[in-house]
């Protein structure tokens, strides 16, 4: 019970749980529609999803300040690539939150004559840029780890029982590289989780911006998986990738 109280007291944790529920509703709505369920049930599920989306927007009202603070911290990092990726990612996130706040004000009726579609597209564009930069950072970290791991390759790679004289075969090389990649990822769970999370998340803006439409069911599933992974990193802080 104590761990629930601690979890619940974090604003971000609540927002992640509501996000997971929202995308679960989206997935459920899509499944019910495919399965030909009653219109009333569909309506309830989509109303619940809209209610959760509005509440999350309300909860995100102060987040641009947080993102700016994170950008200010990231600008002092020693590694040049990390510094660039993280600072710009946080700045994009801050802009995404500002657009999100404007959308919330528009939905509330506080700002009249707001072009909801335009601002929604704008916010998804900033979100997409932030995710691309996060993925770049993940790939960069992965590259660094592979470089360090490289000289210590195992003498008997599991996927190639053939003798060492056939090293130059491209399939063996690919196999060896994949094995190295898997080993590195397996021994660095925070990086693996972050990579998976960002890869799942990227399908959401790609679908909404029409760049790679996948459908509401797939988007719902990706959103649900990334929210669950994010909740895992909150519950077990060692799983959060640093910085």
């Amino acid at each position: 019970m104590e761990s629930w109280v601690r979890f619940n007291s974090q604003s971000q944790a609540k927002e992640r749980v509501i996000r997971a529920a929202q995308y679960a509703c989206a997935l459920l709505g899509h499944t019910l529609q495919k399965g030909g369920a009653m219109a009333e049930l569909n309506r309830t599920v989509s109303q619940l999803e809209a209610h959760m989306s509005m509440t999350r927007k309300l909860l995100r009202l102060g987040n641009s300040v947080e993102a700016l603070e994170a950008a200010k911290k990231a600008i002092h990092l020693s590694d040049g690539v990390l510094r660039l990726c993280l600072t710009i990612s946080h700045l994009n996130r801050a802009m995404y939150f500002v657009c999100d706040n404007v959308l919330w004000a528009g939905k509330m009726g506080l700002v009249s004559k707001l072009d909801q579609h335009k601002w929604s597209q704008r916010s998804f564009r900033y979100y997409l840029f932030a995710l691309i930069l996060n993925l770049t950072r993940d790939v960069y970290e992965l590259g660094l780890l592979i470089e360090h791991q490289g000289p210590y390759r195992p003498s008997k790679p599991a996927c190639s029982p053939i003798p060492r004289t056939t090293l130059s075969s491209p399939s063996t090389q690919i196999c060896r590289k994949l094995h190295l990649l898997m080993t590195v990822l397996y021994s660095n769970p925070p990086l693996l989780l972050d990579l998976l999370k960002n890869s799942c998340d990227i399908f959401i803006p790609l679908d909404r911006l029409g760049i790679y439409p996948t459908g509401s069911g797939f988007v719902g599933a990706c959103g649900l998986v990334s929210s669950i992974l994010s909740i895992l990193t909150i519950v077990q802080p060692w799983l959060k990738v640093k910085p």
Partner: protein
Amino acid sequence: MDAVVRFTNQSQGRDRIFRASQYACALSTYLLRNNSERKGLVAKLKSLESNMSAGRKLLRLGNTVNSVAAAKRTIQLSDRVLCLCLTAANVNRALYFLLDNVLWARSVGLIRDIDKERWSLNSSRCYFLSLVMSLTRDVYVVLQLMAQRARDKHFRQKMEVRLGESSEVAEAVVPHLDAFLFLLLESLKSHPAVALDMLKNACDLFIPLDRLGIYKSNPGVVGFCGLMSSLIGIITLLEPKLTLKP
């Protein structure tokens, strides 16, 4: 800015800001109700208030567990009066959150055939009881402080000086009342946490009193009291030493 981030990161901090905004909207709506030129603004404020209320209901979904955990802690207190008051307050708050969650499920359409009015009245009753128990605890703490102060020699000297120099008629006619009020004010001044908690609970009390029809005021008074108690709640979160413990 760091302090702002730390404050809003707490779930409670955000909820109190939303609560303050919700009651500020309610108060403004009441004040502008007769102003025909501001009908658009009033409509916006009403929409904002109802959306914040709905959002806060969703955000309160896990709070029953919090209150039950708090009740488990307070049941182990050594002082019996505090133990009784705080545990009863926490148990009532847990019930209030439970009923509130059911009302949320009703409002989003997950549960359909329940009597919304009856459940709403019951949840207000639980909230009312928890506030009454909290106020009882505040009064008990103040009485303890006053008893402690009265025994204190230094304070007794101060009191004698004050009673001796009171030349005004009113103070001389009712010396006991004057002495009592002086003791009360001194005790409250030396422990601002108790004074703030008492004020907050007293302001909060008007909300269920109006809802249950025990003491019908008007939406303006309810809005004002709600706003005051939310602001006090924000202050106690920003300055942890102003929070009453346990």
